[in-house]
């Protein structure tokens, strides 16, 4: 019997964990992971903050995965443009969609389309040297409003506060950072719809903020209250820790909503209303929204097509949570194989349309190149230009070091 051919769309954590689980459960299966970009790892490369390199340790697992002879990476093939679902179903016995939820949720208030309103996802991609961010790089001016109080908002607080030495050990591209932040941020107003106890960030994220050199934290609207939670306690310490004057004030506004982004052509301020009905206009020149991601409309999928990751669950769940989902996915596919719903025999990877694609060897060239280009105190310098990514990825003359961690 011919081996099971599996095509996975999206090489982010969800797609890679899916491949890992499927390659364990179906040892003979031939697995192909496609990505629109010429490089793998999705949010692990372009969503996780540059200074949280520890979170990226999971990448070791995925590097191993792609080193297996029955797992292929095809980068630069755009699902929707180069290949559609019908075509994928004719090529693969099993199709897994792991395309995530990439769009920033909209504020839904007047003024949200003014210049200077920037979604957290868009900003994070730009800060991570995403090759599609370059054409219209977001610019963050010194007075910033941040809407939201989850971990993404805490990430933004940290990223906007850091001085150059505080990026040591990261893969931040300093030249890019200067383009996005031409002048240091001097004032931040963070607007949280929930009160301090119910805010959705983790205490660990808040404690990390306490180690930053520049910012002084204060609560301007609402209060932290006396009720305890690890997050509220961390917040209380953060506010108490720093009272001396500084060149960066981070002002927290709890239990209030954004009524309007103010300005004629670009952002001049933000109008908030507390739960008690009190309105305030805060002078800011940039508004960052960190209120989640738009779930893509979830249509039903035809037989032999499965979803995983945020495309399946909506935009919630950590990177490790994707591993759990992938095990569930493997069980479903095993069930459908047993029931005869899936009949192996389709050609797999070789039948994909030709195009300007990269493979895993190409990624290793890019990876080695980026590490070699790293300046002092940085672990890599990412290539942010798509043409250069392809050029390096396809340049067979570039020496490729053995995959990291190869124990043989």
């Amino acid at each position, binding site marked *: 019997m011919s081996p099971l051919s599996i095509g996975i769309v999206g090489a982010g954590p969800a797609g890679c964990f899916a491949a890992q689980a499927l390659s364990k459960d179906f040892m003979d299966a031939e697995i192909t992971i496609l990505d629109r970009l010429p490089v793998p790892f999705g949010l692990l490369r372009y969503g996780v903050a540059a200074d949280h390199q520890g979170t990226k340790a999971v990448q*070791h697992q995925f590097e191993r995965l792609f080193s297996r002879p029955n797992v292929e990476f095809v980068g630069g093939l755009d699902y929707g443009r180069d290949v559609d679902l019908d075509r994928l179903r004719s090529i693969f016995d099993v199709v897994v969609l792991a395309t995530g939820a990439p769009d920033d949720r909209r504020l839904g208030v007047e003024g949200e389309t003014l210049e200077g309103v920037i979604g957290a996802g868009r900003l994070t991609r730009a800060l991570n040297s995403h090759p599609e961010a370059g054409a219209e790089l977001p610019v963050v001016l010194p007075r910033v409003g941040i809407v939201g109080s989850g971990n993404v908002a805490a990430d933004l607080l940290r990223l906007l506060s850091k001085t150059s030495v505080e990026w040591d050990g990261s893969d931040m591209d300093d030249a890019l950072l200067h383009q996005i932040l031409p002048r240091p941020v001097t004032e931040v107003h963070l607007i949280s719809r929930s009160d301090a106890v119910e805010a959705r960030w983790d*205490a660990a994220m808040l404690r990390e903020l306490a180690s930053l050199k520049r910012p002084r934290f204060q609560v301007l609207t609402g209060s932290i209250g006396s009720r305890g939670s690890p997050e509220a306690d961390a917040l209380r310490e953060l506010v108490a820790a720093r009272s001396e004057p500084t060149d960066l004030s981070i002002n927290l506004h709890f239990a209030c909503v954004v009524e309007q982004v103010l300005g004629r052509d670009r952002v001049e301020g933000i109008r908030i209303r507390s739960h008690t009905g009190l309105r305030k206009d805060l002078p800011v020149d940039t508004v960052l929204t960190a209120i989640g991601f738009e779930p893509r409309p979830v249509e039903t999928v035809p037989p032999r097509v499965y979803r995983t990751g945020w495309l399946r669950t909506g935009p919630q769940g950590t990177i490790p949570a994707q591993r759990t989902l992938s095990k569930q996915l493997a069980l479903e596919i095993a069930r459908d194989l047993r029931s005869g719903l899936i009949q192996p025999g389709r050609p797999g990877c070789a039948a994909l349309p030709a195009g300007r694609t990269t493979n895993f060897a190409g990624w290793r060239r890019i990876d080695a190149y980026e590490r070699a280009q790293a300046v002092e105190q940085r672990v890599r310098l990412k290539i942010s230009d798509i043409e250069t990514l392809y050029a390096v990825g396809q340049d067979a003359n570039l020496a490729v070091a053995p995959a990291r961690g190869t124990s043989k």
Partner: protein
Amino acid sequence: MKIIILFGTESGNAELLADEVAEAIGNRFPVVKHDMSETDPMELSPGDFHLVICSTHGEGVLPSGAVPFAAALDRDPPDLRGLRYAMFGLGDHSYDHYARGSEIIDEHLRAAGAERVGLYGRYDASSQDDPVQLACEWAFAVLNEAGHLIGENA
């Protein structure tokens, strides 16, 4: 005597290391891999030598894959006197409790009478180290040191 590689994982990194260590030492020793999430501490046998590989979640708590195992050790500790093991912890030193998950398992095992031997291996996720290389070096060092306990030609 068998080598049991016992791993506790959240995102799969500890399992990866267990796979790689098993492969690296497999031609010298009989090796079996066990996931803590599917292991009853009562089943641990002093007749085996254990290589324990455990990650750390969040700010120094156990990975979800190790929680039931630790709870069972805590609730109803078996008599593990005579059981020898070596420990390898994964963590991130930018947090206060570096590799704490492994230390929690270590404390539970010792409280039940087991004896830790050899190097306490650690991998720091915010370093540039290669975890597979570190774990394999740790395993070889431990097994060389404990060779007389295990018997090279087991």
